[in-house]
């Protein structure tokens, strides 16, 4: 794997706390001396937030789709109608 991709893999390990204590300390030492690396770590942290945001949006869409599909079922729709009459 390209060395910059290796670095991305390492940042992932750091962000997801997959390093051993020793490795984690070493990485943090590198981080404190390397602004460019620190910037990459922050961008990658945000990237993961965005992946989660995207995924949840998709998952909520899927759940909403299930609800809409169930509303097409007369028995289900009737049940809800009688509850909120």
């Amino acid at each position, binding site marked *: *794997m390209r060395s*910059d*991709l290796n670095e*991305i*893999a390492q940042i*992932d390990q750091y962000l997801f706390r997959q390093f051993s204590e020793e490795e984690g300390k070493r990485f943090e030492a590198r981080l404190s001396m390397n602004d460019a690396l620190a910037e*990459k770590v922050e*961008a*990658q942290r*945000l*990237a*993961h*937030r*965005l*992946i*989660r*945001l*995207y*995924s*949840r*949006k*998709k*998952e*909520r*869409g*899927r*759940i*909403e*789709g*299930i*609800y*809409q*599909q*169930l509303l097409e*079922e007369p028995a*289900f729709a009737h*049940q*809800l109608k009688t*509850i*909120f009459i």
Partner: protein
Amino acid sequence: MTLEYDDPIIELYRESFPDFARMVRRMGGSLEEAKDSFHDALLIYLEKGKAGKLQLHSSPRAYLLGTAKICWLHAQKKGAMLSLPEGFEAATPEDPDTEEREKKLLDSLQKSGKKCLELLKAFYYDHCSMDHIAGRFGFKGRRSATVQKYKCLEKVRKEIKITEIYAQ
């Protein structure tokens, strides 16, 4: 919206939601509120299941009803004293400025690379194996899928940098 016909969630939804809706109705809530809280709870249930962190002490239905009730009480601000289920941040809004910024970033990402987002979702959110991902996205094997995963992450990171610079 495409749905898998045998999606087990459909059955769980069908057999749980009316009971929850009845509960919300008794507590004076609306159908819309019942649906929102139920969807929050379902999201928590699905996420925990995918991450292998779902600990069921009873049936999925009972878990869902209990979680949805907490979500509903919390949404009504009646549940401040309740301890929230783990993963509840699924339902709580972010700081508005951060949310706005992240929304904009996500919009531009969706325009530039939907396939990458799908691949990253499959790995980081759905917790699919690299073999599964290789098959689904048409890579030779897990190694090339892994390389592609990191390339996609790099692409997202670069996009973030460009958008941030542009925004300043």
